């Protein structure tokens, strides 16, 4: 009823000269209508690949090996042909890619970006396009009078990011995916973008998937969080619940690796070791070699992603013990 997107068992491989690597390992998650889902992962965790596989938009040498992505009212996007996927893009799901600083055409002004995008999807009425552009630019707190005739180089990083958010909303998609939208911005602009997205979410009722390496940005913004490590979904649940009673050792260690403004500096520390080599075959849990809870079973068997409490999933052989003792 409330379900908007349901992703199940998605696996994505990349073929490279040195062999095949798995970027996303059987990841499952879902988005309800009105959700803001934060997808958190470090570099190489597969978060961007996962986002693009939701759109069935993985280009060679990448390949979606298995899984399904069911969008309410449309069906399994992974079964659609290229042309049908294109119809869904922008209108049902829009994505604001990473490195937005470079994703505008330097030879086109902002107005032309709106015209180009909307014309490509069948809207040719210039008057209507300009009305939409005006309204959306105001929505992202930009002055259309100035910005519409500006070229990308005349805009700051934060302004470009806001133009692209406005552009992604032209067909009022049900789901907006943002890939690291604030990573290239300083803290003050970061806060501005987050506030803006929150306001858009409330006003337009749009659902959001927010991809970031910075778990701190998620709190107070998203209502749900999915934690990825080395392509594997480690934990999924309500943000506050995951924060206060995490069920997965990686989440626990990750939360402990972030210094705060007022906490005890001796209670935080980095996670020892490093990510597994993507070319190495992982038989057990990908986090086992860095995990302080690890037992022999962790190196032999990859833990399943299971629901331990209503809506709270984790992939760890010891999530039940952790849940009993931690909270």
């Amino acid at each position, binding site marked *: 009823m409330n379900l908007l997107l349901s992703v199940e068992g998605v696996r994505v491989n990349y073929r490279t000269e040195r062999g095949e690597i798995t970027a996303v390992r059987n990841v499952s998650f879902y988005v309800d209508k009105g959700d803001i889902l934060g997808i958190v992962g*470090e*570099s190489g965790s597969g978060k961007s690949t996962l986002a693009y596989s939701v759109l069935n938009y993985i280009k060679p040498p990448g390949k979606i090996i298995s899984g399904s992505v069911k969008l309410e009212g449309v069906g399994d996007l992974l079964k659609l042909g290229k042309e049908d996927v294109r119809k869904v893009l922008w209108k049902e799901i829009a994505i604001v890619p990473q490195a937005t600083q470079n994703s505008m055409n330097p030879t086109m002004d902002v107005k032309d970006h709106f015209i180009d995008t909307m014309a490509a999807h069948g809207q040719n009425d210039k008057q209507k396009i300009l009305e939409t552009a005006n309204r959306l630019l105001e929505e992202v707190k930009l002055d259309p009078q100035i910005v519409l005739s500006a070229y990308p180089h005349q805009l700051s990083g934060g302004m470009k990011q806001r133009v692209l958010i406005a552009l992604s909303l032209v067909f009022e998609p049900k789901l907006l995916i943002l890939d690291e939208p604030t990573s290239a911005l300083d803290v*003050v602009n970061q806060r501005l973008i987050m506030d803006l997205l929150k306001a858009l979410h409330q006003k337009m009722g749009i659902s959001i998937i927010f991809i970031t*390496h910075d778990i701190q940005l998620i*709190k*107070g913004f998203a209502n749900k969080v999915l934690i990825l490590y080395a392509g594997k979904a480690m934990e999924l649940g309500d943000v506050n619940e995951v924060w206060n009673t995490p069920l997965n050792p990686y989440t626990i260690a*990750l939360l402990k690796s972030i*210094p705060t*403004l007022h906490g005890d500096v001796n209670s935080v*520390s980095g996670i020892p070791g490093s990510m597994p080599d993507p070319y190495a075959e992982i038989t057990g849990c990908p986090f086992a070699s860095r995990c302080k809870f690890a037992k022999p079973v962790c190196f032999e068997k990859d833990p399943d992603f299971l629901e331990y409490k209503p809506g709270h999933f984790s992939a760890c052989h010891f999530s039940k013990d952790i849940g009993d003792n931690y909270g």
Partner: protein
Amino acid sequence: MDELQEVGIQAKTSLLYFDNVSVHFEIKGMDKPLIAVDGVSFSMNDGELAALVGESGSGKSTLGRVVVGLQKPTSGKALFRGKDIYKLKGKAFLEYRRSVQLVHQDPYAALNPALTIYESLAPALRRWNIVDKKDTRKAVSSMLEFVGLRPENYIDKYPNQLSGGERQRICVARALSVRPKLVVADEPVTMIDVSLRLSIVDLLLNSKKQFGTSYIFITHDMALARYFLLKGGGGKLMVMENGKLVEMGDVEEVINNPKHEYTKKLIESVTE
């Protein structure tokens, strides 16, 4: 000598002494220069820790470059051990060059991709005669150990075989290998994964503990600046806005009781 008397005893005894330092950049087609650093004054003693915070464009990196001798100030005094950095010559200049090192933000750009780790680290040791030639490999190995990398796994590798975190450890090893008195670390963990950041910050602090290295830690992250200073036994927080040092003081005092509006804004923008 006259200059020393002029600026007083503090200038003479400090490791670093900046008085009213400004950096202006002339930009083609603009009638006014861009003021990157605007009348900054501060000093640092041996073994002291400082963190420089501010948002992008506030002038943090330019100030850092003045400290390491890469950016001559337009006006003001920049003294190292009582002597003007930009007037140093001969042996004194070389000694300064060795004593003050820089760790860059981007570990992907800071290592020559055509050189092995050994080839990247050895020249600095040779250049400053830190060890006998025959002991160079041993010295490189012990630096790798210091930064938590097993020498046999890394010494003959190329940068492209290493992750960002490993590369940054190599950069730290290189900077520390010449036994500097002061290291300017410019956003050293910004490009590093969250789970690895604190281990690298701790590495810098280890050298402070073991060798008394002073640090200017440049970051946009107030909480990280606080971690660096408190974990290192305390130090001063310097807040920069539009080229000006708008607030400076003990880190706990500044964070718990910020005086300047800009400092308050930076603190508020940290999510907890």
